């Protein structure tokens, strides 16, 4: 099985088999006293949240995202990736400017969100038909899809 791990801006392919060993042959194991990498012991705390693995290791906190191989290749090949308006930060929808199904042009204002008392206008990333995933007054977390643009064929 092959998958990918994302840490910040980095993507690492992760191929696995029994053993388990690192590519350079070092044996790895995980026990109550931490992680062992080829005889080096790392105290570690971790917690999983869906496709995310949070790790406290080496005095730093890391957020790893498991990227399914199918999803990885789909995202890489998809031209539509930038047609989703995702929430830049958690907040609240103050008002909708454009309406459901409306034909919008790149740069058109779509909706206004508020986070920490700052209002931000989100604009259309492309030309196309607008589908709204939120209503006025609704709250959302960072990264939540707020609107989708379907380009004309």
């Amino acid at each position, binding site marked *: *099985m092959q998958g990918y*791990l994302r*840490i910040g801006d980095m993507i690492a392919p*992760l191929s696995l088999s029994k053993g388990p060993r*690192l590519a350079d042959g070092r044996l790895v194991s995980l026990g109550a006293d931490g992680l062992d*990498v080829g005889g080096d012991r790392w105290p570690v*705390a971790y917690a999983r949240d869906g496709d995310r693995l949070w790790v406290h*290791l*080496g005095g730093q906190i890391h957020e790893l995202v498991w990227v399914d191989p199918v999803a990885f290749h789909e995202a890489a090949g998809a031209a539509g990736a930038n047609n989703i308006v995702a929430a830049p*930060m958690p907040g609240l929808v103050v008002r909708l400017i454009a309406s459901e199904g409306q034909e919008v042009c790149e740069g058109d204002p779509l909706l206004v969100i508020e986070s920490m008392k700052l209002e931000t206008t989100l604009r259309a990333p492309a030309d196309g038909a607008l589908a709204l995933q939120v209503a006025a007054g609704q709250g959302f977390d960072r990264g939540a899809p707020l609107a989708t643009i379907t380009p004309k064929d």
Partner: protein
Amino acid sequence: MTYPFDSVLVANRGEIAARILRTVKAKGLRALLVAHVVDGRTPAMALADETMMIEGDTPVAAFLDGDAIIAAARAMGAGAIHPGYGFLSENAAFARAVEAAGIVWIGPAPETIDLMGDKISARRFVAERGFPVAPSVIEEDDPGNFAAHARAVGAPLLIKPSAGGGGKGMRIVRDLDTLEEEIATARSEGERYFGDGRLFIERYVEKPRHIEVQVLGDGKGGALHLFERECSLQRRFQKIVEEAPSPALDEAERQRICEAAAGIARACDYRGAGTVEFIYGGGGEFYFLEMNTRLQVEHPVTEMITGVDLVEQQLAIAAGAPLPVGQDGLFREGHAIEVRIYAEDPAAGFTPTTGPVLRLVPPAGARFDAGLVEGERVHAAFDPMIAKLIVHGADRAAALAAMDSALARLTLLGVTTNINYLRRLLADPDVAAGRMHTGLIAEKAGLAGEPPPSAETLDALCALAALAVPDVAAALEAVPEMHAAMGRWRN
């Protein structure tokens, strides 16, 4: 110590509610709390003898509803109300309503809040009594010639909303040609944030340091200072690291600035704990900035160097007790540093983050004042500050080392925080040497990005992901060939 009240209601939430309740309980008083359902289980609720839930159009509105809070206080039989910081803590009308309800207000007299809470009346009061304020122009004094008077003060200038706070609506003007435009922008921001477009303009101190002094007043003209704190490390005009003493001051300067603060507290018959904030320039000049008529977020660093429990003193003063010692009975020892743990992403411009708190293990050997517990969620309803970490050392270098160690050992998983960033910031050579100013964090924007982990760390993380995630482990079991090729990382 006997108190004329047997219980204290904390009209606040988060870490400060828990911190206040700890002292309330230690003094043998009944600990009462109001809370909003969105916070779930909290450390404050675990400490409180009784908690009443409050509601509002938004969670913040619930904590701003003075009538509802006083009604809750009556229902629980509260003898006194402690407002914490933020929310209603500097609201004179609320303080009056509390007193009118026959409940003891743990804070300064409402008239003092009126006087010192308004930036313009406060700076006028302070200047008239001979304390230093920056050269400034107040719009209301002569609205028609506001810009002309400001030009006469000379660049650089700082435009501030009169009703402001938290740095919102402040504009720095270096080119006087843009003055009118900047005044218009500041006014519209002031109207938007505070419902008040009044402005004032003062001389901007380049590379300013933020130095503030803790005071305690008896409400009858007697006041003490508990030395200074430096809070120059700020992002978006909000403090994230505070320390005491300030590395900028020599003993003579410390004496002058602390005595000025105590003098201001005496002049306004200050009652309880308060903080006088100053801007300190590179040439040793300092100007009154504002007075905060409440307990500050960063009060623990003062507690660490003086051994004084400031909440205990607030309770005693509210009970009518005299100040416990004279100025020469107060000493400081060593150096204390506090960092604020925020649910935010420094690499994304310090934008707030949300998420579940999957693991929370505070480091041994440090004070950790937290507003949430493992298993709860950080949500967007309130300020993103979730905890404070405070350490003490024999000197500044020892305190910095202790903080680095404490941050490295603090486990907080499930939500992006500024913990890694704080370690990088405190390790910066200028910060380590005490060469700080309020623009340092913005200047060193490169520190905000998370540097890629070392090859060694990447190997460990890859191995952990493979071993710790059940799906991956299951897939591993299903694969017959023993070749684990954890490939090369790329951007």
